């Protein structure tokens, strides 16, 4: 065992970071101190900047995280950027272990011509924008377009589709950034397309998310009967799965095909068995439409039903495209990266040396930068438990960094020297209260401060 207490630095302040902190602090017989860093002034990662603003219940998990932060052995340092304000070498001077929980900050690309045209965006950028992420609050999306097309049928895709279809009253009931509420209230988008590569039985969205679409006040949902009819392979797979939720999903989607239209302002088209193969340029570098290929389903050797292009094409005009084919992790300075999966090179949470494939003492990883973007918020709990188990075992065996015991407290000797305006958890609580107070005045869950300057100003920093 190292000289106690065990000092741990966590880089990132999203769900996986908080679950790991909670589990470290709850280890029996482990004298531990946890310092958590985030490059943003605010904690909670995608709970604040990813979860849809009309899904407040999901965001309530942050209350559990605040309880973790209340532990006197825990400190939060917001607005301190790893790689810029503090480096791995700095951390090795003060801490025994570093846990990277930096998430998946960039997006996957479709890999088709025209993807980079103006008007073609990552859905993740739109999500960050409407949620008031400081890096995205100056983004602009051309909502004067009549038709928007979203590529993908996962949770992010369906969030984006729903947000584009909300009425001004529905928008005002959320904690969406003010600028986004204004832009979306004046949106000219009337038709929203969601494009799924495979069929309805393989779509990643969940039943509550589909049901929500039927409850939108300003939007009709339209599905072509031919695209929700199950082919023989899907019928077989659905029967084999014997899963009531899946049966219900297929039923729900099929019911859209026969549903009466309400003559509402907007129309949401759910399309299946299509993939974009190219985006078209209108001649000025802006997207004007896309070419779609129709797919059929085939079964792989291991039983996965995948899409295969038929060679039959169609055109879809649009000036606004959101690709929602997944988040992807970005490399972290000084730490080995596995480009194939977009994660830090690791085995079950221990960072590996790329030369030897053996664990590097003191370096760990959790969450999406460990396993890639998968699961719901709670999936990070078992994921962090696995990493923390290794951290504890390695600490007991003395496999840690060897910090300079005379270096003193990192807050005074490192962090405040590099970033005098760093944000404590107490600062965040003040900001949180200010946001909630502004929300109460407008009968909204919260009114966010968005840019870094605005946040620092509100806190008098």
């Amino acid at each position: 065992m190292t000289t106690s207490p065990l000092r741990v630095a966590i880089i990132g302040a999203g769900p996986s970071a908080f679950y790991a902190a909670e589990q470290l602090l709850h280890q029996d017989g482990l004298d531990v101190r946890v310092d958590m860093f985030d490059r943003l002034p605010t904690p909670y990662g995608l709970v604040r900047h990813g979860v849809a603003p009309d899904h407040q219940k999901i965001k309530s998990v942050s209350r559990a995280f605040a309880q973790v932060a209340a532990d006197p052995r825990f400190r939060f340092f917001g607005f301190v950027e790893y790689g810029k304000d503090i480096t791995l070498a700095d951390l090795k001077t003060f801490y025994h272990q570093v846990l990277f929980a930096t998430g998946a900050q960039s997006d996957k690309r479709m890999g088709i011509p025209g993807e980079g045209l103006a008007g073609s965006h990552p859905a993740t950028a739109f999500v960050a924008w409407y949620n008031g992420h400081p890096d995205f609050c100056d983004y602009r999306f051309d909502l004067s377009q009549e038709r928007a097309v979203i590529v993908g049928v996962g949770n992010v895709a369906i969030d984006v589709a729903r947000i584009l279809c909300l009425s001004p009253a529905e928008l005002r009931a959320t904690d969406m950034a003010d600028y986004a509420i204004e832009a979306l209230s004046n949106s000219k988008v009337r038709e929203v397309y969601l494009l799924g590569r495979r069929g309805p039985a393989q779509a990643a969205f969940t039943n509550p998310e589909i049901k929500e679409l039927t409850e939108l006040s300003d939007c009709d949902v339209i599905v072509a009967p031919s695209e929700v009819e199950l082919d023989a392979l899907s019928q077989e797979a659905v029967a084999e799965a014997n899963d009531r939720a899946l049966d219900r999903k297929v039923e729900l989607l099929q019911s859209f095909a026969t549903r009466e239209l309400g003559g509402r302002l907007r129309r949401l088209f759910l399309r299946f068995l299509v993939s974009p193969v190219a985006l078209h340029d209108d001649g000025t570098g802006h997207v004007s439409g896309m070419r779609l290929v129709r797919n059929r389903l085939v079964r792989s050797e291991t039983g996965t039903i995948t899409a295969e292009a038929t060679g039959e094409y169609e055109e879809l005009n649009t000036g606004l495209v959101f690709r929602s084919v997944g988040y992807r992790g970005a490399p972290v300075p000084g730490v080995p990266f596995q480009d194939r999966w977009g994660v830090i090179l690791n085995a079950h949470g221990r960072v590996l040396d790329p030369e030897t494939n053996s664990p590097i003492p003191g370096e760990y990883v959790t969450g999406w930068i460990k396993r890639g973007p998968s699961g719901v918020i709670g999936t990070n709990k078992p994921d962090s438990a696995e990493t923390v188990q290794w951290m504890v075992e390695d600490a007991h065996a003395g496999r840690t960094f060897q910090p300079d015991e005379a270096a003193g407290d990192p807050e005074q000797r490192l962090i405040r020297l590099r970033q005098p305006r760093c944000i404590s958890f107490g600062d965040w609580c003040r900001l949180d209260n200010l946001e909630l107070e502004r929300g109460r005045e407008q009968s909204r869950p919260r009114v966010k401060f968005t840019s870094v300057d605005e946040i620092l100003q509100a806190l008098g920093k």
Partner: protein
Amino acid sequence: MKMESVLASKGPAVVTIGPTALLREAVAVLVKHRIGALVVVDSGRQPLGIISERDIIRSASAKPDFLYLAVEEVMTRDLVCASPGDDVEAVLRTMTMHRFRHVPITENGTLIGIVSIGDLVKAQLDAYRGDIHTLQTQLMES
């Protein structure tokens, strides 16, 4: 959930063995790495087959001097491989149905990983635990 999210936190090492290695060598490698199967590859790392504890037990019951057989005499040749984009659930069902416990992962014919049924069960279990935890949190906070 896709196979790639299981592979991402397993590290890049895939333990392999050549077709002419002896079974006693294969046993030593299995014990050293505490695993249950080895992908048998040619010099270009193209998978030729898989040799598992099962294959070794089977040959042990048939031949007393089984430890001196070559891996290629004992290995399972008709390999079922998965892709990184395959659904974990579908692969698990296939493994259960056809009763095999290890599946090599290939991309464009090249071996990039191997997962065991244990890896997949753990991944599914963690996914369910995560879903339950999320639902419980929402119920408690509402």
